[in-house]
């Protein structure tokens, strides 16, 4: 029957407390097509897909697989209906081989027939061109290989409906192209594929149809061939936004931060940074690009005094004063000197914010020690919290509302807002727009540019190359803890940066994986 959809969602609603994450959503997916699920942060994309993969159960509505209503109560149920989801964070056992990971948790006799599994894995691998070695241990794999194992795992279980949650976030452009080739092969094979993404150019390059969600509501589905990035953005945001980042030329750049031969070792003695040297200028934005785990985090933490430095120096030149070496100084002193860091880790709250406290309590993190006496001053942080709330349009019931319960974007606004409010001379931000919707991202970009125009040396660690190319003045590329190049962001191409990101190969390979 031609008219039967692979998946049909009818009036799916999911609430979390008062929040309606999905509001009566209808969606159809057919075999042999790739559907992009597009939406701002918090628009309910992941929630919706989690209901298909058995993690959540819908409050209302019906799910039809192959035309029949089904009830998906667990990931196992989902597999039984041929639905497999590849999550953003891999769920693999490091010390197991690819084949072992794939067979993990499958029913069968007590004896594990490694040969049969390996053979089947190889067959799947050959069919779609995955090129994975079933006997390779996961800890020997690159991020892209791990992702491939996740995909094979799902296929091995007989899934013909695949859901990928932001699969390209951790990949280089080259790896992304490879993934897309694989996905296209699977489409030819009659699989139904849903890909959740924020990146518009990927939507345009890969998918056949685009479904757009906005604030938990289903806005509509369009054919990719009949739409444009601008039109999709309008659907997502609900009103027109310009897609260009305003990038004024740096005014009177002066050296602020001079890093020379910086080498850092982690607790196991592995080199996380290897002879890194660069200069950050006041009045410009220095982008830092690299595959996840290439030393970005360590670099920023070393500058902020939070990561031990084995060798090298970090010379900081404040206005009208001789340069000082920041190495060995306690974090508080570095911060007082005017070096601010807004680091947004994977879990957003891990560093820099206190989830259980409200905005006021979080503003206090910067000022709690100020003033004499044993009591903390709550008044100024409170005023600051109100100001940040107003200026960055933080959506929160009150400044005392625990930030953990705010949505991701608002949490980041609190973090970035606080760091900017301290009027730093060096502003470091890592993944400041991680998982943010377009609107909020632009607010943050504008804030960065505003700081740059004030003469602040902005260091911006980003994941999205398109943004790095549009926002920054220069881009430093890290690879395996080494600087593989510093390029002019106005003239470089994405492919060139992508190549630099993977240039250090061979023996350095290990340093790339976490």
């Amino acid at each position, binding site marked *: 029957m031609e008219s039967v959809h692979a998946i049909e969602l009818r009036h799916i609603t999911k609430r979390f407390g008062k929040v309606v994450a999905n509001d009566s959503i209808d969606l159809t997916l057919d075999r042999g097509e790739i559907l992009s699920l597009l939406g701002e942060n918090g628009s309910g994309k992941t929630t919706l897909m989690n209901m298909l993969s058995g993690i959540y159960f819908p409050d209302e509505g019906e799910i039809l697989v192959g035309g029949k209503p089904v009830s998906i109560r667990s990931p196992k149920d989902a597999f039984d209906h041929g639905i497999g989801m590849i999550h953003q964070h891999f769920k693999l056992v490091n010390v197991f081989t690819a084949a072992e990971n794939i067979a993990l948790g499958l029913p069968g006799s007590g004896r594990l027939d490694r040969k049969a599994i390996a053979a089947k894995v190889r067959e799947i691998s050959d069919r779609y061109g995955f090129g994975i070695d079933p006997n390779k241990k996961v800890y020997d794999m690159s991020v892209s290989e791990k992702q491939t194992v996740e995909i094979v795992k799902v296929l091995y279980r007989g899934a013909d409906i695949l859901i990928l949650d932001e699969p390209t976030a951790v990949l280089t452009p080259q790896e992304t192209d490879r993934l897309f080739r694989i996905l296209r092969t699977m489409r030819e094979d009659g699989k139904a594929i849903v890909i959740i993404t924020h990146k518009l150019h990927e939507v345009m390059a890969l998918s056949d149809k685009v479904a757009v969600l906005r604030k938990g509501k289903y806005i509509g589905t369009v054919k990719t061939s009949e739409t444009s990035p601008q039109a999709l953005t309008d659907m997502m945001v609900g009103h027109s936004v310009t897609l260009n980042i305003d990038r004024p030329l740096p005014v009177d750049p002066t050296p602020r931060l001079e890093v020379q031969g910086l080498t850092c070792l982690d607790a196991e003695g592995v080199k996380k940074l290897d002879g890194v040297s660069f200069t950050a200028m006041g009045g410009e934005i220095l982008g830092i690009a690299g595959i996840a785990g290439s030393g970005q985090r360590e670099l920023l933490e070393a500058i902020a005094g939070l990561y031990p430095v084995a060798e090298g120096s970090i010379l900081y030149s404040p206005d009208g004063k001789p340069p000082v070496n920041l190495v060995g100084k306690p974090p508080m002193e570095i911060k007082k000197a005017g070096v601010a860091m807004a680091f947004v880790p994977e879990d957003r709250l891990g*560093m820099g914010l206190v989830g259980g406290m409200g905005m006021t309590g979080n503003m206090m*993190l910067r000022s709690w020690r100020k003033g004499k006496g044993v009591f903390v001053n709550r008044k100024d942080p409170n005023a600051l919290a109100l100001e940040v709330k107003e200026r960055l349009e933080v959506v929160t019931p009150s400044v005392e509302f625990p930030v953990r319960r705010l949505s991701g974007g608002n949490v980041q606004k609190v973090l970035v807002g606080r760091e900017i409010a301290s009027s730093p001379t060096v502003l470091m931000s890592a993944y400041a727009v991680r998982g943010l919707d377009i609107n909020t991202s632009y607010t943050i970009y504008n804030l960065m540019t505003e700081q740059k125009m004030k003469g602040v040396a902005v260091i911006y660690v980003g994941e999205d190359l398109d943004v790095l190319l549009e926002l920054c003045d220069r881009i430093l590329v890290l690879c395996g803890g080494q600087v593989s190049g510093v390029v002019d962001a106005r003239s470089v191409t994405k492919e060139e940066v992508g190549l630099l990101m993977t240039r250090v190969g061979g023996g350095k390979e290990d340093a790339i994986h976490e």
Partner: protein
Amino acid sequence: MNEQKTPLIRLAKRDSMEPWKVWCIRGSSFLAAILLGGLIFLLMGNNPIAAYGTIISGSLGKNTAIRQTVKLAIPLLGTALAIAPCFKMRFWNIGAEGQITAGALAASYFALFWYDKMPPLLLLTVMCVSGAIAGGLWALIPAFFKAKWNTNETLFTLMMNYIIIGIVKWLQGGPWEGRPGSQIIPMFDSAAVLPKVFGVHCGWIIVLVMTVLMYIYMRYSKQGYEIAVIGESENTARYAGMNVGRIIMRTMFLSGGICGIVGFIVASGANGTLYDGVAAGVGFTAITVAWLAQLNPFAMIGISGLLAVLEKGADTLQTRMAVPASISDIITGIFLFCMLGCEFFINYQMIFRGKHKEVA
């Protein structure tokens, strides 16, 4: 057909709840505890109403009974206050028992050997301060190891209990033994006994003052803020420039110090001597008190009072109605279970199969 396959009960996290609803849940869980406890009495062949009546009258009926109850509540409240900052910091200090004993030991030293060498007021002050210091130092040891080498504080503080209790046992049978062979340390001189106010040793005033101080400390002081931040995320604390190790040690010293004061109060006020059971499990029960009160010092007054009423009442129940001691433990357990359990219903809601259809 789809409907039949939905899970019978599903859990969903609640966003927030109006305060009156929260108190309704708490109230009904209390009621449930009373009913469940009544069932136990019925099964034992006692009249539940009479049994509860005995608990109330035995603990609050007469002035003497009230005094006994207050006496039980004092160390519970004091110790709950002591562990509150540790728990706020997510430092699991389950060594309050040992810190109480250490404080009692130091206070007893002065009570036994210095009582005739200084005026009573000074003696009591010295006992109190030495108790605080001894308790604080006893708590500082695991904190130091935690700060320096990240040892597990749960095991460490627990083990420290046995060491100090062993030391007291040794003193009891050795250097500090009163009449040879008695295995008992002699009673303190009257100068070393806490004076009574309204018929109960004045320890109750000390703990009430500490309640207010602890509330202010946790809520408004810089140190209280540091503790709260560390409890949420050590990384964030480090990022904000806090010296996490030092704060852990300082907080533990404070916590142990308060436990030490409790030890002094119990030895000097309630027992008038030192013996190895001076802490009497208070260090563990206080964990329940602190948790039930959600680390709010004022709520601890009520909770420790309630537990004291149950304990004293169950005692009377034993003598008057010949109910076995284990039954009173069961009753206390039921109350704790219901009160802790109700927090689950405050945080989560249950959705039964089919119910959402009506909504749609």
